[in-house]
């Protein structure tokens, strides 16, 4: 038995603090009673009601599409920026780029959302595009703020890489682009996929920026959840929340499992 130090006790308390609300939520999603706080027996009726709600299903599909495209674009922009941040000489351009890319990490969301929305209105005014705000504008907005997270994840990986392998490839006559695609990308692949997944979940999750950047044509899942939660606690949302929590945990567990297996394999060789 390890001795219980103050920091270990705090770690356990903190973990309970983080997880207890979610477990209680999952538990109450199987509540038969319409009143969220009164236990009315085990039931899965909220799940079947959830799957009959066309509005929610449409929003899920919209959100998934936006998240997929945003994550892909964010990986491209973020990786390029990370490359500039770690491999380019110190210059004025490099410093402004790294400042701009990390700014969305801390910027309050209402400011980012408001400014992007005003940009789209101005662009529509000046060049007639975008004619209306919808999935495309949400995609642009999400790609921009997700790129910040990708840049941080990828640049920390790029910094740890052994440069001599890339130099060897270039010495052997590979062009910089070919070296990047064939040597660098496979080596930073874990960071790229981590960045993609992070962006995907950030985009799925975002309410504030999506509300500003979206028009009547594109309602994302958080926007629907927010408007129904505002009216009070509803058991249908408990069921939806449970499904989200379980699917994220499953994906995270699988990723961890495969990463550990790959690590074990690498250690055996």
């Amino acid at each position: 038995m390890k001795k219980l130090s103050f920091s270990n006790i705090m770690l356990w308390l903190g973990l309970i603090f983080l997880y207890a609300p979610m477990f209680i939520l999952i538990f109450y999603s199987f509540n038969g009673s319409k009143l969220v706080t009164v236990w009315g027996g085990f039931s899965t009726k909220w799940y079947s009601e959830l799957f009959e709600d066309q509005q929610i299903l449409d929003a899920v599909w919209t959100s998934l599409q936006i998240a997929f495209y945003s994550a892909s674009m964010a990986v491209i922009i973020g990786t390029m920026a990370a490359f500039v941040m770690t491999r380019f000489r110190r210059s004025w351009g490099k410093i402004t780029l790294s400042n701009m890319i990390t700014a969305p990490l801390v910027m309050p969301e209402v400011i980012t959302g408001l400014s992007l929305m005003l940009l789209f209105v101005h662009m529509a005014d000046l060049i007639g595009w975008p004619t209306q705000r919808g999935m495309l504008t949400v995609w642009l907005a999400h790609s921009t703020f997700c790129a910040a997270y990708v840049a941080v994840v990828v640049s920390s990986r790029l910094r740890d890489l052994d440069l001599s392998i890339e130099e060897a490839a270039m010495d052997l006559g590979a062009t910089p682009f070919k070296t990047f695609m064939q040597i660098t990308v496979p080596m930073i692949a874990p960071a790229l996929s981590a960045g993609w997944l992070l962006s995907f979940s950030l985009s799925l999750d975002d309410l504030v920026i999506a509300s500003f950047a979206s028009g009547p044509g594109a309602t994302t899942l958080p926007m629907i959840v927010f408007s129904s939660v505002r009216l009070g606690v509803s058991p249908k949302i408990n069921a939806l929340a449970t499904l989200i929590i379980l699917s994220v945990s499953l994906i995270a567990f699988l990723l961890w499992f495969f990463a550990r297996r790959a690590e074990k394999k690498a250690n055996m060789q």
Partner: protein
Amino acid sequence: MKIKSLFGFIKGRHLTMGIPYLWLLLFFALPFAIVLKISFSSAAIAIPPYEPTFNYVDEALNIFLNLGNYLLLLDDQLYYMAYLSSIKTAFVATLGCLLLGYPMAYAIAKAPARLQTVLLLLILLPSWTSFLIRVYAWMGLLSNNGLINNFLLWTGVISDPIQMLNTNFAVYIGIVYAYLPFMILPLYATLVKLDMSLIEAASDLGSRSINTFWRVTLPLSKSGVIAGSMLVFIPAVGEFVIPELLGGPDSLMIGKILWQEFFNNRDWPVASALAIVMLALLIIPITLFHRYQARELEKDL
């Protein structure tokens, strides 16, 4: 000039830098310039709902700078109080995150290496599930007939439910809960690099553990404390979702006011002015964060 030689001139290097640079100029820097511009215009019943600030008539460029929005912010108690209470709320919540997060980060950094990845995953996992849903989970817990009140009534600690939902207390809980991982990660990153021999040396020289913590561990992890605090404090100042769902009508937060001005009152110029003043207030913490980051980058290189 032939097309090919033109492409030869634009090298891969330029493209690698140019594409993200252009993207960020267009979708990050330019929008702020527009917010600044609109904050100087006046509201109008039109689409878009504000008067133009530039006007080019008869070869004369007229620029209208309306300072009214800023004067309104100074004049109206509501906005002034909202800024103050946003900063207070963010400060209290950041302190809460630090008090809970520091020992947690310390415990993870001291755990065996195999356990560290699992613990970090456990800390991160909640932040991958929906932010909105985590805030919502607290609504059910904190309400007057919620689980916490029911439990306290049942045990007989209290005879009447305590009002917890729709108070500032609920907002603090919500922010600490939602932002805790952002505090723990940078703290862990600095604590795990901490040279243990320094702590051993301190205890060899007779320092008690509390003294060692204040004089050795804490100063060495200062950069993590700053980064974590800024990652919590800055977004918390502009927080909208948490005060809207957990806070009461009296818990004013500037993010909530901005949202209302924009969506409910459709007063875009005042919303823009609110955003500009918020940014001005956050300039110092944002520069602090960036300075820390720059130093970290140089250390690593």
